[in-house]
């Protein structure tokens, strides 16, 4: 990550917490740290003090590629009128189970 300027407190890491086994990790916030190991302990101290999680992921913030604000029309608006993509669009015949 030579292109990231490392400050006195390290680089920024995004923190993802899994609250229970089997469910997806959710973004919780971020921490500063000098390496992955320290990022994990920092995340543990900052985000899991109240039993919020059972597993933590940390990822250097600069490795996250985010969609740009100006793209949001092109990215998200076309989905607006495609209600048939929701399962609730369809009437479920009576007697169908496990849906």
């Amino acid at each position, binding site marked *: 990550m030579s292109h990231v300027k490392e400050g006195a407190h390290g680089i920024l890491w995004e923190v993802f917490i899994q609250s229970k086994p089997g469910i997806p990790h959710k973004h919780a916030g971020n*921490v500063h740290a000098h390496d992955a190991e320290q990022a994990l302990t*920092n995340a543990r101290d900052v985000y899991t003090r109240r039993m919020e999680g059972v597993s933590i992921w940390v990822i250097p913030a600069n490795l996250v590629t985010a969609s740009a604000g100006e793209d949001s029309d092109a990215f998200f608006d076309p989905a607006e009128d495609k209600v048939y993509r929701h399962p609730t669009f369809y009437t479920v015949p009576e007697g169908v189970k496990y849906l």
Partner: protein
Amino acid sequence: MTSKEALYHYVLKMGDSSLIMGHRLSEWTAHGPVLEHDIALTNIALDYIGQARMLLTYAGELEGKGRSEDDLAYWRDAAQYRNSLLCELPNGDFGQTVVKMFLFDAFQVELHEALSQSPDEQLKAIAIKSLKESKYHLRYSRDWVLRLGDGTEESKIRIANGLEAVWMYFGDLFAPSEGESVLVSDGIVPETASLRKRVEETLRKTFEEATMAVPDFDAVMQEGSQRGIHTEYLSYILSEMQSVTRMHPGATW
């Protein structure tokens, strides 16, 4: 001295050490070098105080005079405190704080590990619960010793100065509490020499890995805590900690 009286003194030493360690560390709250470590240090301080609560409650039961954890914490003076001298030392800079924590945590992990096997059910239960915390504390403080010891020009000087400032108080961690030999021969608590050997091993390995000079384990050390002889720092910390209780005895909110 009965085994129960001896256990009271032993548990009091542990409880006082955790309480003073935690109170001293809490001075970092809102003064931490960065937000992450402000929270980490405060967490650890709270863990120490949580341990102190369990231990002082148990000490009160063993003593059998109806004293609660609060009575023991707030209504004894420095000469009645039995915490290890190391715990009451000032924080100094971050380097001195983490190296002091490291010495204490290395000791705590071995102690809690050993007491997890104690035939005394209550002490065993407290040790098992505390061990999980101590292991994390040691991971935290040891990590900083490695980082600072093997870090920049400045960090090397700071951690070395910190170690030098606290080293003469290391030996007092092992000072036997009143009647401790009774407990050792009954197999209730670990024998000091073997405990000390394991702690010194952790220290030696860590300082070597941190490329620091390994301190002299045979140096003459300060002692006296188990006779109520403390450094000048303890009475100041107590007067601050106890001031509200003593100004408004029995107050509740």
